[in-house]
């Protein structure tokens, strides 16, 4: 008999599968569930973008691209970063195209982490940072952001987490699952803590286009930060292109050229058909972004108000498409609350604990659904909490 557990990498064996897995196992066994769990847009990729992909296939553009990605796409990304966020990146040496934002994050981490380095991760946040950093050999230092600070990382919290071994700060804003964003002055305050250190920042800006009220500001645009920041982003959320698996990394050339080696050996290049679609998205997709963003904003206000009115208080999200209500007032753990809601009302939301222990008392609700669907879910939740109150 093979003892596979002895053959698998030790670090990997110690890595738990995503905390949402158990919960989704339950959901998938049930029928007619009104789910607010999905972390991807309900829009279809705009037609002109799909058409560009079809056209590339029709004309036989089925080859590899260069490791960095099509030059035309890198030019488009460079122009986009300037146009939308006032960031300067050279299309030749400071940008490359990845397989989704996830590869960008993975590559960035593996490129800079040495065994024993510390990586600071604000929590709650997207579930991949911690395992990826650990697999690259890092010790992960988490910071639990607080509801009273609108789930923003504060300079004091950051300062307290820094040690001589700190290599990298992950900055996950606009944030999944809380919907928190960091404004310019808040980024400047964090920058003041980082500026005289050797700490790098990995800024995950995948939700940059989905902010409401305040335009997204990248920490790379704050004085003295460009040279220590790696920006990871992608097309999934801004253009409703999740299935195309396309993202990009922007960083100073000496960092980027090293990251490119990892990408070159592991991936070679991102899918060509997706790259052609992405060129069209970046060059002619600003209106699509505005249209989808306006619709998310409408739902955001709708769901926030709906939750408040049924007695589930929540922080008003300022970015992404999630709301992160406080469900601690019902005498149940997050997991119990979500399981009971699922079994009794067939309504699925994600327990906050899926995003780290500090998610206890919270749940993540996605509003990447039609208002009609959200209304249905709110009715179910209302019945559920009324029963709990009795």
């Amino acid at each position, binding site marked *: 008999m093979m003892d596979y557990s002895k053959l698998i990498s030790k670090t990997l064996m110690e890595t738990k599968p995503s905390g949402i897995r158990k919960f*989704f196992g339950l959901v998938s066994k049930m029928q007619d569930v009104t789910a607010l769990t999905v972390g991807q847009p*309900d829009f279809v990729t705009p037609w002109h973008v799909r058409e560009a992909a079809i056209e590339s296939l029709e004309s036989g553009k089925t080859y590899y691209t260069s490791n960095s990605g099509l030059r035309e796409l890198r030019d488009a990304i460079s122009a986009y970063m300037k146009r939308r966020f006032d960031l300067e990146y050279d299309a030749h040496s400071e940008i490359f195209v990845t397989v989704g934002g996830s590869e960008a994050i993975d590559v960035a981490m593996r490129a800079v982490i040495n065994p024993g380095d510390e990586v600071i991760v604000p929590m709650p946040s997207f579930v991949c940072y911690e395992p990826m950093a650990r697999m690259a050999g890092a010790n992960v230092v988490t910071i639990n952001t607080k509801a009273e600070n609108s789930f923003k990382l504060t300079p004091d919290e950051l300062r307290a987490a820094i040690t001589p071994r700190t290599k990298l700060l992950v900055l996950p804003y606009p944030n999944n699952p809380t919907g928190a964003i960091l404004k310019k002055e808040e980024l400047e305050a964090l920058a003041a803590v980082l500026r005289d250190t050797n700490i790098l920042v990995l800024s995950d800006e995948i939700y940059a286009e989905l902010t409401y009220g305040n335009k997204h500001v990248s920490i790379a645009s704050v004085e003295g930060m460009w040279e220590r920041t790696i920006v990871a982003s992608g097309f999934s959320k801004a253009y409703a292109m999740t299935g195309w698996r396309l993202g990009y990394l922007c960083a100073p050339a000496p960092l980027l050229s090293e990251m490119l080696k990892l990408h070159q050996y592991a991936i070679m290049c991102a899918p060509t058909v997706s790259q052609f679609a992405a060129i069209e998205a970046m060059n002619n997709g600003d209106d699509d972004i505005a249209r989808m963003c306006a619709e998310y904003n*409408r739902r*955001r206000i709708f769901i926030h108000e709906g939750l408040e009115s049924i007695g589930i208080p929540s922080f008003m999200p300022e970015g992404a498409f999630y709301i992160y209500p406080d469900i601690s007032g019902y005498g149940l753990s997050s997991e119990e609350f979500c399981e009971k809601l699922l079994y009794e009302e067939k309504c699925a939301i994600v327990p906050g604990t899926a995003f780290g222990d500090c998610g206890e008392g919270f749940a993540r609700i996605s509003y990447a659904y039609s208002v009609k*669907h959200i209304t249905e879910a709110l009715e179910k939740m209302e019945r559920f909490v009324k029963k709990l109150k009795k």
Partner: protein
Amino acid sequence: MEKLLKIMEEDATLSAKEIAAMLSKEEGDVKKMIAELEADGVILGKRTVIDWDKTDREYVTALIEVKVMPQRDDGFDKIADKISKYSEVKGLFLMSGGFDFTVMLEGKTMKEVAYFVARKLATIESVTATATHFVLKTYKNEGVIYAKPEKDVRETLIL
């Protein structure tokens, strides 16, 4: 203003509050803007888009090209006024090109439409010719694609 109208054109069921959210404006301001647009006759009404083919209702739609002899002083307007008074006429447009008006007509049967054209439209003084085209199937109308609503097929990615 244009943005507001575009949003309302797409979905008439939105409340002023929802529209305000989409435009990053105050609810009160949106209400005021809508009231003004209604008073100015820019917003003329709100309708529901219905795929009648999915119902038992018997109906037929025709697009009729109409050539007319414009009248002295009034040009086309007086004729247009007359044509648009018929309740069967759902739309009326003055066109450039080979003919003058497009009339969108709705009737219960093809016969009914034919009668209308022969007895009412063609007999209007200054109408010199008509050509009737019946609609066989509607694929898209009012910006809405007439297909089954798409099911949410997003698979749950475990992340």
